[in-house]
């Protein structure tokens, strides 16, 4: 049994923060080896060390039994390692072939030989079963195909070991399955796959061996077959988390938000919402499930007035709010926790207090005659800091010096402290640690108890199952099904997420 990769006692520090501490990893050739751990457990750092993007402070790297120093990705590539990043790095205006050969162009007489590149791409695509049209512009292709191109890039560079960083985050279950098949094809040809994930299901399904990282340390490396999901969770978080369904009473409130036949376009002018209809009642959490990029972002933007609807109505407590300004919608009683909180949700350079002020700066008692009441703002900020348990030195601390979970709490504190009847909550716990996630979930439940109507958009099914009274599944801009939160299975949701026309019960 020969080792393709062996990392010995890798330690990587960023200032005083230790991202990887004494991590050792042995990867056998011809295997799919998964590396799992929570966000921030050090998975990506470790892989960046292996790919030459980061230099370890301590430790050694062996590739095919030979000790290597990898000062840059080029050295890693030369050693037969390829990496498919979580965020694709393709150039939209170039063709598939140009992207595959970018950085290693085939040239004839000093000029790039486009024909030869297309031919070689077609050849590779054939050999490894990754279907693409080499002459097509990448900007026109779907995410699944973009991933294939990324893999082709790695293969074209002669990689024998492929690292995939969260490869399924952007894929439908079907695309994921196809990817897994491709990966199995690779190992059958003697290649090695390193697979980073925090999705237990996938790891169980596809990997031969699992390494679990926690807080930058290696917890265990075991054959997958010997483990259960519960074991993995236990190892990942160090304690069993109850992502159990939160107990609750029945929904009895009146409809607060009624959306009917809503259409909208995305940036490229393509239909992103195709006739979406649903309602949310007071004291109800309606979850929106779906693979990222199926219209959830656009739905949130249309509901909050950041994107025009091309057709349809949105009624909030009997008042039509579609295509009103963001300001008017806020005033009508919509609070919005945005999905991209660092871009939209806060001004990172401004203080906690300045961030709390947003959206209410021209309302009494926050300001009078256009002049901000700074005493009131300071008092309220202090109150919200303790009420939402925001870990900050003072109201004047810049938001950017807080942790991800605390930044999200600032956003929640602002949005949940108004008198909005409808809360639009988009990816509330993305990139947030377990402890803060628990707190955020409890807060959302508390808002439900307080009789707010809540629309919870999330790509994490366990989150939806824990919190939602009903789950709507979006696919390609449509709502594929309306499932009860109680007793629903991830499998049932997954099928709808993939766009499979729904279970017989739905046809009715």
């Amino acid at each position, binding site marked *: 049994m020969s080792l393709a990769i062996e990392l010995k006692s890798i330690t990587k520090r960023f200032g005083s923060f230790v991202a990887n501490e004494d991590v050792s990893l042995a990867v056998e050739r011809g295997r799919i080896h998964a590396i799992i751990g929570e966000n921030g457990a050090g998975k990506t750092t470790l892989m960046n060390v292996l790919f030459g993007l980061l230099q370890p402070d301590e430790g050694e790297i062996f590739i095919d039994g030979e000790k290597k120093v990898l000062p840059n990705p080029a050295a890693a590539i030369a050693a037969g390692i390829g990496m498919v990043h979580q965020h694709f*790095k393709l150039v939209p205006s170039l063709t598939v072939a140009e992207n595959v050969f970018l*950085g290693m162009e085939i040239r004839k007489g*000093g000029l790039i030989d486009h024909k030869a590149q297309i031919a070689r791409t077609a050849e590779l695509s054939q050999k490894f079963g990754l279907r693409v049209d080499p002459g097509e512009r990448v900007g026109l292709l779907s995410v699944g195909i973009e991933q294939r191109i990324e893999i082709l890039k790695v293969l074209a560079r002669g990689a024998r070991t492929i690292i995939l960083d969260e490869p399924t985050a952007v894929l439908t279950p079907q695309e994921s399955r196809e990817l897994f098949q491709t990966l199995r094809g690779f190992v059958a040809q003697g290649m090695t796959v390193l697979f980073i994930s925090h999705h237990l299901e996938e790891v169980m399904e596809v990997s031969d061996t699992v390494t679990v990282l926690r807080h930058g340390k290696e917890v265990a490396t075991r054959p997958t077959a010997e483990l259960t999901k519960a074991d993995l969770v236990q190892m990942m978080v160090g304690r069993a988390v109850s992502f159990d369904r939160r107990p609750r009473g029945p929904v009895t409130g009146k409809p607060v938000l009624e959306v009917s036949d809503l259409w909208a376009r995305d940036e490229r*002018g393509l239909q992103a919402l195709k006739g979406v209809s649903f309602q949310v009642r007071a004291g109800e959490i309606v979850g929106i499930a779906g693979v990222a990029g199926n219209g959830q972002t656009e739905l949130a933007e249309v509901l909050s007035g950041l994107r025009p609807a*091309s057709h349809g109505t949105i009624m909030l407590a009997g008042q039509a709010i579609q295509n009103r300004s963001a300001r008017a919608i806020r005033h009508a009683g919509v609070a919005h926790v945005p999905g991209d909180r660092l871009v939209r949700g806060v001004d990172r350079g401004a203080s906690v207090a300045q961030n709390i002020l947003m959206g209410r700066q021209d309302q009494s008692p926050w300001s009078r005659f256009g002049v901000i009441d700074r005493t009131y703002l300071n008092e309220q900020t202090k109150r919200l800091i303790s009420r939402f348990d925001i870990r900050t030195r003072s109201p004047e601390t810049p938001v950017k010096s807080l942790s991800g979970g605390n930044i999200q709490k600032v956003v929640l504190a602002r949005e949940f402290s108004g008198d909005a009847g409808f809360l639009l909550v988009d990816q509330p716990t993305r990139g947030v640690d377990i402890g803060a996630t628990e707190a955020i979930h409890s807060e959302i439940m508390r808002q439900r108890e307080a009789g707010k109507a809540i629309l919870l958009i999330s790509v994490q099914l366990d989150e939806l199952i824990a919190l939602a009274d009903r789950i709507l599944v979006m696919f390609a801009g449509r709502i594929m099904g309306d499932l009860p939160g109680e007793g629903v299975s991830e499998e049932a949701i997954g099928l709808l997420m993939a766009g499979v026309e729904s279970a017989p019960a739905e046809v009715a």
Partner: protein
Amino acid sequence: MEVLERLFNAALIVAMLRTTAPILLVALGGSFTTKAGIFNIGLEGQMLLGAFFAVIGTIVSGSPWIGVLCGVAAALVLAYIFALLVVTFRANEVVVGLALNILASGMTISLMKAIFGTRGSIFGHGLVGLPIIRLPFAKDLGWFGQIISGYTPLVYVAFLAVPVLIIFYKRSRLGLYIRVVGEKPEAAEALGISIARIRYTASLICGVLAGLAGAHLSLGYTTMFTENMSSGRGFMAVAILIFSNGDPLKLLAGCLLFGFSDALSLRMQTTLGVSSYIILAVPYLVALAALFALSYRSRPRLIQETLATMGRALSVKPNGASGS
């Protein structure tokens, strides 16, 4: 009718090509920085400094060719400072570009006074311009020959650079990398292409062309240096770069539009007697009009949206009727 004939003839096209050349050169230079994702408002200063040192170099050496080299070298120094501050120090490109323009303007005037003891302009002192090239076969081509022959060399350089740049961006590795760095820097980084190095390269090539543009202004287009003689051509070039996105062909079209409006307005001054102030304002107004008109392009999406909505509203009934 007579007036029109006097306005539009082969001589007008010649004048148009002459006035196009300086702005085309500097705009082609800016194409490199634009494609590499740098907003280069400093073209104006590079061009001005190039014009000044081209004159100095010519006076000192007696050869306009050495003058051209001096002009290019001076513009390169400015381009290097721009790249150093913007790429390495990550300073704001608008601030740096403006400061360099002011630097070039103040420096040329100060040096002019220090060296020649005068203000205003430099001519004489043994200053010679670039020779005029008469194509030997042009005589047999009638009016077309008239149009293509008899310019200073940098005019030919400017127009020949357009097809060269097209091939450069499409088929050369450096051209490809410049585009990648501008469009998707992460992609370049992931492949080990140094973003900084590509941006430096693009800035320096831009400096060469801006320097040539300046040298052409003081040794080809005229044979003198005047205070602030680039007179906003660098800024007009930036306007063209914005709406052409740095594509050589669109850029050529934009520059020809300027050359044409410039040449035409100069003629109107002589034939119609319009105030010179109004005539001088024409190129700036054309630049502004083009900038505004072309940014109006984002309009079609709105129209599309409306049409699509109306289309759907109209098609709802037929759909319903067909019973889905």
